């Protein structure tokens, strides 16, 4: 924070505020790291593609949790809606990936919009319960419609066409990697724009003090609904990415475990900072991958322990830690 209250200090503060949204050099790091990963770890591309898709999922959760302050354990509802949409299309003759993504986003947004209409007036435990119930209902419906979704066996027979008719998805994951990278990049650009806009700033207001926002006439419900729907669309895209790059969709894409783990990945990185997912997701998934060659089930013990420690001591995640060690003016 610049000190003093003279005209120079004030104009400096205004300039700093206006400059906030401009791109900083450090923001190129994730993308450079991804490209470096492609060349350094060619055997790990399928994992890298999953990491990129999951970062998008975490980004969607960040919007709704970090920016709008909605504590949800049902984000998987949108992920699964997108995954099944893309999957069912690919299993029934339409395997074009990009239109599949669009359809998935639309389906997930619809689910987000409708459920948001119903539940966003609530708060606290009631809201949390309702997000859980929405995801659980979708999972039960997907199970019932097993003729279409494959039920407990998972969706069978997905055939995803090559992108632009040329880039096919293969065993080594090269196409999958770039596909996920490009989609993530585009979505990230959009989200970044959103949070730095007036809309994004009003979300912060709603999160911090909803009553006052209502008092000044801000359309609180409308804004919450809008961000919920956008977040749902993004989660749907990430679900579709996972479905298309693995060729599989199962009921766990709608499950509580998925909602819970994306939350923890985001919190590890730091909530409400836009980049929490970019840090938390790779850390979590790479560590899990290394661990799973040993004893995959016990991984959850250490994750659980980490969650307990984070909740008790280290609010703010990695980015919060960095802020405390290297404070910089905002």
């Amino acid at each position, binding site marked *: 924070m610049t000190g003093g209250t003279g005209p120079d200090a004030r104009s400096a503060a205004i300039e700093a505020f206006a400059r906030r949204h401009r791109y900083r050099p450090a923001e190129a790091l994730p993308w450079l790291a991804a490209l470096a990963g492609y060349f350094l*770890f060619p055997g790990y591309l*399928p994992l890298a593609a999953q990491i990129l898709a999951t970062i998008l999922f975490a980004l969607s959760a960040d919007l709704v949790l970090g920016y709008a302050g909605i504590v949800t354990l049902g984000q998987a509802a949108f992920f699964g809606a997108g995954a099944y949409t893309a999957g069912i299309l690919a299993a029934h003759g339409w395997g074009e990936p990009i239109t599949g993504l669009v359809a998935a986003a639309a389906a997930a947004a619809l689910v987000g919009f409708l459920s948001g209409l119903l539940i966003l007036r609530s708060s606290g435990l009631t809201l949390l319960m309702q997000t859980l119930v929405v995801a659980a209902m979708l999972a039960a419906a997907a*199970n019932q419609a097993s003729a279409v979704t494959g039920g407990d*066996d998972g969706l069978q027979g997905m055939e995803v066409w090559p992108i632009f008719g040329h880039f096919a998805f293969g065993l080594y994951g090269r196409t999958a990697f770039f596909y996920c990278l490009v989609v993530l990049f585009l979505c990230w650009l959009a989200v970044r724009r959103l949070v730095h806009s007036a809309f994004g700033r009003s979300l912060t207001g709603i999160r911090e003090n909803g009553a006052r926002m209502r008092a000044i006439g801000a359309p609180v419900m409308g804004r919450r609904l809008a961000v919920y729907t956008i977040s749902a669309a993004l989660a749907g895209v990430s679900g579709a990415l996972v479905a298309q790059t693995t060729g*599989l969709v199962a009921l766990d894409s709608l499950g509580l475990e998925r909602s819970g783990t994306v939350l923890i990945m985001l919190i590890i990185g730091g909530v409400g900072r836009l980049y929490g997912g970019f*840090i938390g997701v790779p850390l979590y998934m790479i560590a899990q991958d290394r661990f799973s060659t040993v004893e995959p089930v016990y991984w959850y013990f250490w994750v659980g322990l980490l969650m307990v420690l984070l909740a008790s001591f280290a609010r703010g995640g990695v980015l919060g830690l960095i802020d405390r060690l290297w404070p910089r003016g905002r």
Partner: protein
Amino acid sequence: MLAKVRGLASALLYAVALAAAPTPASAQTVRIGVINSYSGFVAQIADEMQKGIDLYVKDHEKDLPPGVKVELIRRDDTSKPDVGKRVAQELIARDNVQLLTGVILSPVAAAVAPLTAEAKIPFVITNAAGVAIPRLSPYVVRVSFTLWQESDPIGKWAAQQGWKTAYTAVSDFIPGHDSEAAFIKGFTDGGGKIIGSVRFPPDNPDFTPFIQRVRDAKPDVAFLWVPAGPQATAIMKAAQELGLRQAGIHITSTQDLLPDEELPNIGDAALGLVTSGTYSVAAQRPANLAFLAAWKAAYGAKAIPDFASVDGYDGMAMIFDMIEATKGKFTADQAMVFFKNWKDPNSPRGPIMIDPETRDIVQNIYIRKVEKLGGKLANVEIATIPMVKDPWKALHPAK
């Protein structure tokens, strides 16, 4: 940022270490990836299968040609197809396995099969029973069983008993659907009529409402199918509590309802029940007696194997036979030619062979009845249907 750099650095170090790992120059190591469901609701059956695999390797390592070794790399699919697929991908691309084996759940096998076609890696399935799986890739061969192989004969047998009506209650996933369809075919071919069907969630604990439905329909016979393991005991308990047999309803199924390791827990409620199966601990053939002796020596006097153990054992037998025949140097296609023509007249299950056209198992199906032998319950083989091929494939020829 620091955390990210640290993460990258450690991953880099790991990659370097991996690349620098020595590949044996003089010894020939055949690397085999074993994909199993160590966690999840099928963990008990998975454990039986793993024990069978391990027993064969332990007892027959010395039979390998000189200079040839076998390395098993175990990975857990945690009962999820996407994890199974990823694990298979890693085994192929990172661990450079020459063969894949194992797999309990059919959805996992279905997810792994296309990879084997793309990467040309033979896949010896030692449990997953989904009928269509060998068609998903020319590199899949199965040594276990299909539910059609087992359920069609018991359906016919049930009709032969003079039972006119049947009700089916099965687990709602691939093997359950297969067993239901096959039983219905066998029973209706024999002149019977199906008066109702119900499916329950695969990891369902509470069978009472479903058994109630069966009871209310009053069929002559009830076909109850659950994956082998603790659920078999649970459904039999519900049947006993609701007095299914006392109400005059006969119960039948495949060996999954009365697996050998659960018979002691199910208790006398199982007496007299007839099921179809590929293996019973009570079989008296010499190969089985030798197998049981080796099993008890390795795992203790109280350990009870079941059909999954024998399937794992036979799978390794086939792989070892191939390694011996090729002296440990084989291409995927050579291995597949060997597997397609493999037979073993002396398996603990009796004579078995692979059908070269379908790459699926051909074996005796036994009709067994639960009786008391020496004070203990046992599945006693009362009839044998010799060398049964999978009927589904005959009914649904590949295009």
